[in-house]
């Protein structure tokens, strides 16, 4: 506010000037011209200003003006004391209301500022996490190349040793022969195999993390998307399972949304794949995709009557690399992490309700902001 920028000192002078101006004007009209009109109310100006600028301290202004009014009437001007007393009270009342209002405004401004600060902090933290994941996943790759590379070099070196050893073995004692044979035919290949397969696994994990962090900054292409159509095309990819297990699938008509098509396909694809793969083999499978509009957003439900998610697993379902329940389907445990990241990128949120042995319903919201999508692109 401009008023805040004024020095406290200059505020004092402004109030003093206005007060003196008011008093002299009132004196002039009241005493010299004998007209008692609106000019009495000029006193409200310094009262307002004082209360707004100095809050409670500013109440001294109406108090002193009220006293001035009373004293001057009592001793110099005559007139009705009761009227002036009431007017004095009125001054105090106006001052107090101004204080309350200005304090409320100030509080609101402070909160807004705080909120803005939090938003900025949060965005920064978010950016840092993104950067961090990105750097980690890149820099972790470099040493892996060495491990992989030198294990391979070691392999070919030990191949060379092995083939030469065949001819050299007869020169050794029986015990030495046995030790060397075990070392070069069993222990060394085993160790190198373990190193190699661990590095491969590590590489997969890093790639999955990298994909997750890339989802965070991929430029989204917003377009009109028919989720029912997407769901149906994703279901086509799962047709083999659906036909084999005789799964009943219902896809309701859905409102069109503005979203990134690829992201929506990933979301639907992952949720439906989970639903199909984690059905309960003991009862006929049912999957139902519904939606409803709520305000400017659209809420989607993907319901199944599958195995459900146990209470202990519920907290970690969206975490990367976590897989819950009985695992009879291969996967890296990243699907729902990707889904959550994509829903959040669209400014929506995702949750689920689940009962073990009864089924799970995933619910996600996509804000449908037509024409304002550029804001979300960030």
């Amino acid at each position, binding site marked *: 506010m401009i008023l805040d920028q004024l020095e406290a000192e200059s505020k004092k002078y402004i109030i003093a000037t206005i007060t003196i101006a008011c008093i002299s004007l009132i004196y002039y009209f009241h005493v010299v011209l004998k007209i008692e009109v609106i000019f009495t109310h000029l006193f409200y100006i310094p009262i307002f200003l004082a209360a707004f600028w100095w809050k409670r301290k500013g109440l001294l202004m109406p108090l002193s003006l009220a006293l001035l009014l009373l004293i001057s009437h009592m001793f110099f001007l005559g007139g009705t004391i009761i009227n002036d007393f009431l007017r004095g009270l009125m001054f105090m009342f106006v001052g107090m209301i101004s204080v309350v209002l200005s304090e409320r405004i100030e509080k609101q401004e402070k909160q807004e500022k705080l909120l803005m600060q939090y938003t900025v902090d949060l965005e920064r933290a978010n950016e840092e996490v993104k950067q961090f994941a990105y750097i980690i996943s*890149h*820099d972790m*790759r*470099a*040493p*892996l*190349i*060495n491990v*992989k*590379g*030198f*294990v*391979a*070099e070691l392999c070919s070196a030990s191949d060379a040793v092995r083939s030469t050893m065949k001819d050299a073995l007869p020169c050794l004692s029986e015990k030495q022969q046995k030790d060397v044979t075990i070392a070069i035919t069993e222990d060394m290949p085993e160790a190198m195999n373990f190193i190699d397969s661990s*590095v*491969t696994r590590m*590489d997969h994990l890093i790639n999955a993390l990298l994909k997750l962090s*890339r989802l965070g900054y991929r430029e989204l292409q917003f377009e009109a998307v028919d989720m029912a159509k997407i769901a149906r095309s994703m279901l086509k990819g799962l047709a083999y399972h659906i036909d084999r297990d005789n799964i009943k699938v219902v896809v309701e008509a859905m409102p069109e949304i503005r979203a990134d098509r690829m992201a929506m396909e990933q979301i639907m694809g992952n949720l439906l794949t989970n639903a199909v793969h984690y059905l309960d083999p003991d009862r006929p499978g049912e999957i139902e995709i519904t939606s409803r509009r709520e305000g400017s957003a659209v809420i989607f439900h993907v319901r199944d009557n599958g195995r459900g998610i146990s209470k202990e697993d519920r907290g970690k379902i969206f975490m990367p690399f976590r897989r819950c329940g009985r695992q009879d389907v291969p996967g890296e445990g990243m699907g729902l992490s990707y889904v959550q990241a994509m829903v959040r990128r669209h400014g929506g949120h995702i949750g689920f309700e689940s009962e073990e042995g009864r089924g799970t319903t995933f619910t996600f919201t996509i804000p449908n902001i037509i024409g304002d999508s550029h804001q979300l692109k960030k």
Partner: protein
Amino acid sequence: MVMKDEVTIMIVEDDPGHARLIEKNLKRVNITNEIVTCADGRQALDYLFGEGDYSKGGSNAPLLVLLDLNMPVLDGYEVLKRMKADDRTRRIPVIILTTTDDTREVSRCYELGCNIYIKKPVEYKEFTDAICNLGLFLSVVTVPGKEQL
């Protein structure tokens, strides 16, 4: 056919393991050129501009640079940028050889004027293939001579 032997291959790579693996695999496809290894961007620029440790005068042979991106002290982008900004080094072919294949980084490198971008695969078979192919490719490349200033 082998790339003219007087061409020096400069490997700018902070990871000594990577540098060694690159060198090994280049040798496998009969690249017999002199190979210089620099551990960071600073050292590479010193070599290129004959400053710091190389102020007594480096080699005068034509160069070809294999450049890593993520390096301490001075990263690959900076090296590339400074090479392309200087008349003495502008024409030296630069091959980016890095762990990243992030599209933003790839396009940034080409924008800065790199000649080729190669990703180091983690899988060693692919890594050897990539480097060996690069070696075969290098053997038919012609490199401009050192600028005479």
